[in-house]
């Protein structure tokens, strides 16, 4: 158990983090693009991609909310050991991790009119991630893109809050995609 | 083929080599050692530590040597080094009451427990060039006494006992760190003080002076100015208690300022505070005056529109590393923007000329 906890981090932190960040940044800049990431071996049910994103973006400055789907002692210990990030309630979370059903969307910070950046980024673990289903339009998308989103209405409501709102990273296995608040879904 | 300003790489290498040669100066004159700078240019070293926000006299002396005596350049070297250092934790608040004082004066009382200690000050020197220093500079005989081991109570504590001065209750909150989080306005007093203590001495001095001359005058008395060494302690969670990690010299200035009061509240004096690394009393006094001027809002005073009351103005312009970088960047090439202006002004002049000609014709 203890040994397991110590494992699964990046073998070469600066390099692995730079690769993962490039993937996350590309995904956030190009909603619909699905990127591969590698280097993290977190305990189940965390996906490889979610683990890599955590190792790349989270530290003691980023309170994390764990959805019920991911709130296990193994996950908590692994995150604490590898990132030092504190766990928080929904309202104060900078990042949240969970399945779509496990994240209480309406309660996360959406930023303030003067600081719209002070909003949560939700890392949504999904079983499937593909370029099919919902149509995406907006910044970062040339004409339109397709992404398998869990639903549409919540993202439409979120986009209507712009410039406030939540930003999403979808993780599945070793793949990820992102959906910023600017994307219009239909 | 004509190509402008090619050879940037070679120009930089040559400039660096030339700079190194100039730094050394005439090689028939012995080279300065870092220890000489540390010991004999101590006030320059202090300023570099204070505005560099890094207490390390040897590194500050090295920076001064490398910067050819340009203190802002030396501060820059220290800041750039400081930013790469890992942060192990925060110390507990230093206790200046336990300062081993080299100098301690009060302007508000003729005498007080602990006494007036003049210390090594320029204050009553006549500013006459000492040509003997040019010849040898050997130290004269200095009378020696046993150091005072007692704690020296703060003058303010006597005013506090009578509730004559507004009290500043201690807080357990960890103050935000100006060097780790972006400055957000309005700033807390802790942030303002951090900004002032590392701010440019000349800028803070000028701001403080402006309050004395009437731009948000707050009538400061130096209740106490003390310079000396204090221990720095750090809580070690594994040990459960604080250990000594070193000793630093600081200058602390507390001012008593004009009083506040109303029908319901009896009048009380107010405070300004300055605390700076090293023996840096001009800076510490200036800091206390500017601190007090910036407190107008929390003390319910009027905004007189004075520069020293404007926290955005003071905090955004006090940092000499930011200021010098931005000031000096205008010597970088800007020819693309200038070209754009050139075309615009030619076009505007052409149109204006055409209008004039047309008007004259009509």
């Amino acid at each position: 158990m203890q040994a397991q906890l110590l494992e699964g981090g990046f073998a070469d932190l600066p390099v692995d983090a730079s690769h993962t960040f490039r993937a996350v940044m590309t995904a956030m800049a190009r909603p619909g693009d699905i990127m591969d990431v590698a280097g993290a071996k977190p305990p189940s049910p965390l996906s490889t991609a979610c683990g890599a994103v955590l190792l790349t973006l989270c530290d003691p400055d980023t309170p994390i909310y764990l959805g019920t789907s991911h709130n296990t002692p193994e996950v908590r210990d692994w995150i604490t050991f590898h990132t030092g990030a504190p766990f928080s309630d929904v309202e104060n979370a900078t990042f949240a991790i969970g399945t779509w059903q496990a994240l209480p969307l309406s309660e996360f910070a959406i930023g303030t009119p003067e600081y719209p950046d002070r909003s949560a980024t939700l890392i949504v673990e999904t079983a499937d991630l593909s370029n099919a289903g919902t149509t995406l339009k907006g910044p970062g998308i040339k004409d339109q893109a397709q992404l398998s989103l869990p639903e549409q209405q919540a993202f439409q409501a979120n986009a209507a809050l712009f410039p406030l709102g939540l930003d999403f990273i979808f993780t599945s296995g070793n793949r990820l995609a992102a959906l910023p608040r600017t994307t219009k879904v239909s | 083929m004509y190509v402008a300003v090619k050879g940037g790489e070679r120009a930089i290498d040559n400039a660096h080599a030339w700079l190194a040669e100039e730094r050394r100066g005439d090689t028939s004159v012995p080279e300065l050692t870092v220890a000489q700078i540390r010991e004999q240019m101590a006030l320059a070293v202090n300023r570099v530590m204070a505005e560099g926000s890094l207490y390390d006299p040897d590194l500050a002396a090295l920076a001064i040597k490398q910067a050819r005596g340009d203190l802002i350049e030396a501060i820059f070297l220290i800041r750039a080094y400081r930013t790469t250092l890992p942060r192990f934790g925060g110390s507990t608040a230093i206790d200046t009451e336990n300062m081993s004082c080299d100098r301690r004066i009060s302007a508000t009382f003729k005498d007080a427990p602990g006494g007036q200690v003049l210390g090594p000050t320029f204050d009553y020197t006549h500013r006459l060039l000492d040509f003997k220093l040019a010849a040898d500079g050997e130290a004269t005989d200095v009378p020696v006494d046993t150091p005072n081991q007692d704690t020296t109570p703060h003058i303010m504590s006597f005013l506090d006992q009578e509730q004559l001065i507004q009290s500043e209750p201690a807080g357990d909150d960890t103050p935000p760190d100006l060097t780790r989080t972006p400055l957000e306005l309005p700033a807390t007093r802790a942030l303002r003080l951090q900004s002032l203590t590392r701010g440019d001495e000349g800028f803070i001095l000028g701001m403080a002076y402006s309050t004395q001359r009437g731009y948000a005058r707050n009538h400061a008395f130096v209740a106490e100015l003390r310079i000396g060494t204090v221990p720095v302690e750090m809580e070690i969670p594994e040990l459960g208690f604080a250990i000594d990690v070193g000793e630093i010299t600081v200058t602390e200035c507390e001012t008593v300022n004009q009083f506040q009061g109303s029908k319901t509240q009896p009048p009380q004096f107010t405070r300004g505070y300055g605390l700076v690394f090293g023996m840096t009393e001009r800076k510490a006094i200036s800091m206390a005056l500017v601190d007090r001027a910036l407190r107008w809002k929390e003390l319910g005073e009027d905004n007189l529109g004075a520069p020293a009351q404007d926290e955005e103005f003071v905090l955004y312009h006090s940092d000499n590393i930011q200021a010098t970088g931005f000031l000096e960047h205008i010597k970088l090439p800007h020819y693309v923007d200038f070209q754009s202006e050139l075309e615009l002004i030619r076009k505007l002049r052409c149109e204006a000329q055409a209008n004039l000609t047309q008007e004259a014709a009509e």
Partner: protein
Amino acid sequence: MSDYNFAYLDEQTKRMIRRAILKGLAIPGYQVPFASREMPMPYGWGTGGVQVSAAVLTPEDTLKVIDQGADDTTNAVSIRRFFEKTAGVQVTEATTDASVIQTRHRIPEQDLRADQILVYQVPIPEPLRFLEPSEVETRKMHSLEEYGLMHVKLYEDISQHGDIATAYAYPVKVEGRYVMDPSPIPKFDNPKLEMAGIQLFGAGREQRIYAIPPYTQVVSLDFDDYPFQASKADHACDLCGAKDSYLDELIVDDQGGRVFMCSDTDYCSTRRAQGHVGAQGSPIQEDAA
């Protein structure tokens, strides 16, 4: 320099910058505050761009650095060397070979591809700053989408000069929401702000990061009767003959003789290598010697 971390910055600092970049991309044109670090080069000399590049670079990247469009200007050389030393990345002067381009004051003439990232050095990120010096006030104006002051300024230009008197750092509105300073690029470059690549803006001294994702709507502010015009010197490049590139004007003799040449040195040399020759292509060297 090997004692320093990959790309100089420590990992915690990079994480902080990376989070700011992601929020910047999610809110195009909005200035995200970040805790800018003191860099070993002066504020105002590209510390913001350098921090953004350091947070973005991977060891496999090929970096190009330009200042005024040129790779060989001294500050561009200095920054390129910094990353050669601290990140060990490949460097190039060829726009097409670069995966990350750090720039001061220009957008390359060559259209950027989707796999390229353009990092701008920004001196004053706040487009409203010269109209309203207070940060507290300008932040409020952005939050309320209150940009009347900017239109008044542009309108006053027109009534005084008969034209909008802003030649560079020409303000734009991003995705119909935030008014943004595109950094001091000549307004000739403004139309290129809508591109396939990712654009990141770093202002170190002012502690702000902002971004424009690919294919984001970027509109230069103007009026119906005074539409925005991207202008350049009315010449062709004297070296390569290009008519579509932004030109530097050089004074070449005591009589005030002028030569015009591409500000984008890679664009110019690429064209010359392809055999394009401008009006004074070769003879100039003999004359100038």
